[in-house]
């Protein structure tokens, strides 16, 4: 029993690391442009399917496939922003959200069109499970996922604190008007953030593919979990995301010890409702 708990705790940390990558882009675009991108989950699906295509279809090495997929998804996200979201800003927030739904539906259809309705798998080589004494922990690739999550957190932290763009981002997200008056180049920041959202989304999607399967609906189902992390973190608290992701990941993966595994996403939803009822500004609100 202890063994199972330890293992699921580690799985929870893996899930948390993936969620960090998935949620960062979602929240950063929300902070900057003021609307939730319901189609954000589709970037995960696009990243995963592109990797699948490069790796299995064109037989590139996995690392190269992943890097190409991340770059391509980032460019796709930027182009979609430029073509669809940017001109909609003059209409207000609600048309923007609805546009993101339409775009999400379109991307989901595109993923299903090219990937087919059946689930796929990367078929990566199977690594040996690392054991400590009698307890088996995780296989090596899962540890890499945790590592990627931690590296991503450190990069984002250093970026927000030390670079000019990072400081500009913090300025805009805390007071948009003031930042514009002070002469922050919003267009550049916008482009950068959407590139970042696409790239981190793709990373999350690829990691999801490493852990499980690729399904055409993964975009929508991940959107829901990403949104519960965002609500738990208090919508827009970048540092809150990092802790909220691990909380949601742990609760989901430890919860299925008690509940049927079909309820994994339902647990994320339950967390969201409870947080909204008790601490609506997120658990890190002062």
């Amino acid at each position, binding site marked *: 029993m202890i063994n199972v708990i330890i293992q699921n705790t580690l799985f929870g940390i893996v899930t948390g690391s993936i969620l960090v990558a998935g949620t960062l882009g979602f929240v950063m675009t*929300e902070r900057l442009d003021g*609307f*939730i991108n*319901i189609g954000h989950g589709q970037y995960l699906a696009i990243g995963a399917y592109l990797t699948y295509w490069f790796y299995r279809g064109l037989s590139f090495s996995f690392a190269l496939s992943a890097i190409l997929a991340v770059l391509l998804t980032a460019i796709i996200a930027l182009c979609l922003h430029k073509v*669809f979201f940017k*001109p*909609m800003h003059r*209409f207000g927030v*609600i*048309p923007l*959200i*609805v*546009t993101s*739904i*339409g*775009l*999400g*539906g*379109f*991307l*989901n*259809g*595109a993923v*299903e*069109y090219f990937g*087919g*309705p059946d689930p796929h798998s990367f078929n990566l080589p199977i690594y040996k499970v690392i054991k400590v004494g009698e307890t088996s922990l995780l296989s090596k690739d899962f540890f890499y996922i945790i590592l990627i999550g931690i590296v991503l957190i450190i990069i984002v932290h250093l970026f927000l604190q030390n670079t000019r763009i990072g400081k500009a981002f913090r300025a805009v997200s805390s007071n948009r008007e003031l930042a514009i008056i002070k002469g922050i180049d919003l267009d550049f920041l916008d482009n950068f953030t959407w590139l970042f959202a696409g790239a981190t989304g793709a990373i999350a999607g690829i990691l999801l593919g490493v852990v499980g399967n690729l399904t*055409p609906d993964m975009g*929508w*189902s991940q*959107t*829901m979990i990403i*949104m*519960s992390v*965002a*609500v738990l973190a208090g*919508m827009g608290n970048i540092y809150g995301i990092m802790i909220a992701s691990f909380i949601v990941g742990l609760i989901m993966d430890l919860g299925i010890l008690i509940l*049927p595994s*079909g*309820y994994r*996403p*339902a647990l*994320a*939803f339950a967390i*969201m*409702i409870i947080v*909204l*009822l008790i601490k*609506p500004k997120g658990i890190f609100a002062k």
Partner: protein
Amino acid sequence: MGLIDFFIVMLSLAAIWGIMGLAYNLQYGFTGMVNLGTVAWFAIGGYTFAILTTHSPQLGDAYMFGFGLSPIIGLIGAAIISGFVAFLIGLPSLKFKGHYFAIITFAFASILHYLLVNERWLTNGTIGFFGLNSLGENIFERNIYPYFFCFLTVLGLIFAYLVIDKVGKAPFGRAIRGIRENDIVALSVGKNIFMYRMKVFVFSSIFIGLAGALYSMYLTLVTPSMYAATLTFTVLNAVVIGGKANNKGAILGIFIIMFFAQLLRFIEVSPLFAVRMSAINAMIDGLLLVVILRYLPDGILKEKKVIYN
């Protein structure tokens, strides 16, 4: 099946969807609440109706409740339960400014789908319920029943139109449009925004639940696969195309969407391509929504500008 029969069946379907479109318009068009989980209330209506009217479980059935009540009680139950669920979902999501309502409704719809599949004691799992009774089925002959059902749904649509139009024109309707345009101003003249939004949400969810019950009557079955998330987007599409905050527009939008969906059915495609048809459908739907919002932001029928002195 003759052409008239086909027309009758399509008209009943369009009327059911029309009720849903009208109710959705009250949320999205009039109040500016982006409900991304409309399909959930449609499913709740359908399932409540099914559970209340289906025969009690026999040996080998997975579900535990089947009350075998008359369809009228099924309809009333569907209305009550969907209104109540809307109240429960409204409690955490409507109080705060921001995107919480969109997030919660979107998440709720996907969770409900899991529940419908997994809670077999209540919903009979992926099989669902079939052979459901319709209203007045034992009064009318089999071959003229579709005409009666069509009459029933159109009557429902007219009723929904009259009620929702009245609400939109009443002081209540002015208040919710005020909240949509500027909630701070609405608050400053003493409008309780939370209560208004909650009333709209519960009220329109009752209509969506009724539409769901009618839909399950129409198909005489409910299964989880009927309630895909794309259904929400179809309704949203219809309201955006027809014209938000315009009740005639909502019905027009539904009829346009229905017409094209039926048209697609008659296009002959190779079997290899047919597998991809649902994906293409989703792509067209999504793109249509984006393009209409961009180039025709008010829809085909614009909201009537009202000037108050």
